[in-house]
């Protein structure tokens, strides 16, 4: 039995393990960056922290609350709600990550009182809700996929500019760029899997691998820079 077949035949356990690693990674990143934010009150760090907070919540909803243990057994009729929440938090996390790279263009350094409830973020909430509703009514995930592909295409360009600008001073910035490209590939592959490959499990495994590497690269960066 090859690795792919083994993963496919044990996919429920593998998914839980996959989500568990991502939730742990997000928790570590949120705590580390929250400490830096409280000290510096820097808005970029604040939005970056929010991004991983939302990623963590999204994965908790989809893979723990939405897994066979709770929803499937006791409330199968509410599975759609879990999917809606998962999509909403995932899209918002992407928006926060992108906004952490470009907030300086829209806010002054003092920023807003709240990073979760302000006019700029309200626009993201509205966009996320719209995308989630489109996906719900058309019974697809393509709106989320397309939004994330566009979003991470922009984020990859910004990350590349930052890498080129920093030279050898910013050693992690090239890994940041690699992480952005990987997650972009992940979303493209996910989109193709939904549209052309009928959710082929072998294709999805590659998506999970891309996602996992993305989170691990960020964990590496955060741990290395914060000396952990």
């Amino acid at each position, binding site marked *: 039995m090859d690795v792919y077949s083994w993963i496919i035949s044990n996919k429920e356990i593998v998914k839980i393990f996959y989500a568990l690693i991502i939730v742990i990674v997000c928790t570590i990143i949120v705590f580390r960056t929250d400490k830096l934010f409280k000290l510096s009150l820097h808005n970029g760090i604040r*939005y970056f922290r929010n991004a991983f907070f939302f990623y963590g919540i999204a994965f908790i909803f989809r893979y723990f609350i939405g897994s066979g243990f709770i929803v499937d057994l006791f409330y199968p009729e509410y599975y759609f709600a879990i999917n809606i929440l998962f999509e909403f938090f995932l899209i918002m996390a992407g928006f926060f990550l992108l906004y952490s790279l470009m907030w300086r263009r829209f806010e002054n350094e*003092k920023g807003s009182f709240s990073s979760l409830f302000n006019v700029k973020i309200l626009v993201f909430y509205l966009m996320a809700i719209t995308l989630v509703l489109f996906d719900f009514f058309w019974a697809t995930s393509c709106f989320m996929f397309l939004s994330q592909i566009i979003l991470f295409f922009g984020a990859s360009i910004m990350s590349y500019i930052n890498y080129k600008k920093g030279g050898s001073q910013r050693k992690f910035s090239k890994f940041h760029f690699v992480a952005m490209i990987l997650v972009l590939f992940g979303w493209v592959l996910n989109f193709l899997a939904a549209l052309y490959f009928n959710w082929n499990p072998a294709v999805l495994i590659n998506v999970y691998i891309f996602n996992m590497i993305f989170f691990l690269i960020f964990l590496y960066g955060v741990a290395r*820079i914060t000396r952990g």
Partner: protein
Amino acid sequence: MTRKRERLDVIRDILRSIQENRKIKPTRLLYASNLSPQMFKEYVDELLNKKFVKIDIDPKGKKTFSLTTKGYEFLEEYKVIENFIENFGL
């Protein structure tokens, strides 16, 4: 051309001036910070609110600024914060 000092750089400069002098009078700190009086007041108010600095009043009633533990902690972590912001493009 030198780049404009960012908020964090200004805070670091103010805290370093206080650290170097241990206790510093407001007027001397204003000169050292290289800020306009209005901007200086905004930054000092922020640092007092964040409890990075404290005001000491001597028996003659003169005010001086000194660093708190949180202020020292910020100076130690400043390099980490700067590194983080630059590497993640924030």
